[in-house]
C-alpha cells in the first residue's frame, strides 16, 4: 500500500538514478493524482558507457542523456522535470551552502509532503552522497513539525549493517510495465542490462521479479542523523 501524498519532490544527481529504485513509486503517485517534481542535478556527462563501436562521445553524451531523461519522465507520467545544470562527478565540490539553498528553494516552492533522495554516506557514488547531504541539511533546518517525510535509498555494501532493513516497501507490480519503459528510456545506460533482465523476467526468475516489483526506502531518522 502506497500512502497518498500532497506533493512529492525527488532529488537525484543523474538521469537514470530515478529509474532503478523509484520509477514504479513515481508512477504510482502519478496514478493517484499526486504531483511529483523531479530535480535532476546533472546530465550524467561523465558516463563511461559509449559502446564499442561507440554510439556517442564525451561531447555528445549529455544531449543523448537529456533526451533519454525526458522520455523516462514521459514513461513515468512525470510532468515536472527540473534539470539543474550541474556537471556529473562535481556535485561534492560545489559550495555546500549553495547546494542546501538549492534544495531549500525547491522545498519552499513545491511544499512537498515527501522528499525522496539517497542516504548520505551509503549511496556509493560521490554525487549521490553529496546530493543526499544537501537534501538532509535542507530538511533538517525546517521546524520539526513542518518537515516533509524523507525517504532515502541506500545500497552501499554495508547498508544493512548500518541501517538494518528498509522500513518502507512499495509493491509497484501494477506499474511494472511503466518501470520497464522508464529503464529502457535510458538506453545509453541500460540497453545491455535490460536485454539480460527481460530474459530473466520472461522466465519468471524470482529474483528478477522481486527486483522489478518492489522498491525499498529508509525513512530518514532524525534521532540517528548522519552528522
Amino acid at each position, binding site marked *: 500500500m502506497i500512502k497518498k501524498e500532497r506533493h512529492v519532490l525527488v532529488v537525484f544527481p543523474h538521469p537514470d538514478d530515478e529509474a532503478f529504485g523509484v520509477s514504479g513509486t513515481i508512477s504510482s503517485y502519478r496514478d493517484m493524482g499526486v504531483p511529483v517534481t523531479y530535480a535532476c542535478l546533472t546530465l550524467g556527462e*561523465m558516463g563511461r558507457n559509449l559502446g564499442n563501436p561507440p554510439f556517442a562521445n*564525451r*561531447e555528445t553524451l549529455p544531449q543523448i542523456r537529456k533526451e533519454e531523461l525526458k522520455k523516462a519522465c514521459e514513461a513515468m507520467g512525470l510532468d515536472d522535470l527540473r534539470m539543474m545544470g550541474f556537471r556529473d562527478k562535481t556535485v561534492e565540490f560545489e559550495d555546500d551552502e549553495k547546494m542546501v539553498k538549492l534544495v531549500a528553494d525547491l522545498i519552499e516552492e513545491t511544499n512537498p509532503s515527501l522528499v525522496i533522495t539517497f542516504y548520505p554516506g551509503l549511496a556509493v557514488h560521490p554525487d549521490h552522497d553529496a546530493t543526499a547531504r544537501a537534501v538532509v541539511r535542507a530538511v533538517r533546518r525546517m521546524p520539526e513539525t513542518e518537515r516533509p517525510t524523507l525517504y532515502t535509498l541506500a545500497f552501499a555494501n554495508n547498508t544493512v549493517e548500518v541501517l538494518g532493513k528498509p522500513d518502507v516497501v512499495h509493491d509497484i507490480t501494477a506499474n511494472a510495465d511503466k518501470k520497464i519503459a522508464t529503464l529502457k528510456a535510458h538506453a545509453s545506460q541500460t540497453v545491455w542490462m535490460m536485454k539480460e533482465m527481460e530474459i530473466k523476467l520472461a522466465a519468471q526468475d524470482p529474483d528478477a521479479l522481486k527486483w522489478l516489483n518492489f522498491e525499498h526506502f529508509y525513512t530518514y531518522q532524525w534521532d540517528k542523523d548522519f552528522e
Partner: protein
Amino acid sequence: MELVKPDHLQELITSFANKDVYIHLETTNGSYAAHFNESVFNAGAFIRNIVIKFELGKVAGDSPHRIGLKLPSGWIYAQGITHYKLDEHGRLLMAGLDAEGKLAVALEISETPFTY
C-alpha cells in the same frame, strides 16, 4: 568515433600545434569500481577547458596508442587511446574504450571552449 588511424590522427594533432587550445583530459575506472570489487583502488583525474599551447604532439605505440603533447615548460600525455573523431565543431576527440565500450581515458583538443 572510429578506430585510430595513426597517420591521420598524427596530422590532426599537428594541426593544433602552436595555437592556444582548450584541453579536456580524463582518466577513470568508474565511480562504482570499488563497489563492485572492493579490492579495486578507485583513481582518476579530470581537467576541462584548460588553455595550453603545445609545440609538438605525437601518436606513439600500437593500439591502444599513447598521445603526448610537449609544452614549452611541461607535458600532457594520455595512454590507452583507441578511438578518435574530428567533430563538426572542429574539435579533436580522442578516447580509450575498453572491450565493453566503457571509456577509460579521454583527451580532447579544441580551439573553442568545451561546454561547461
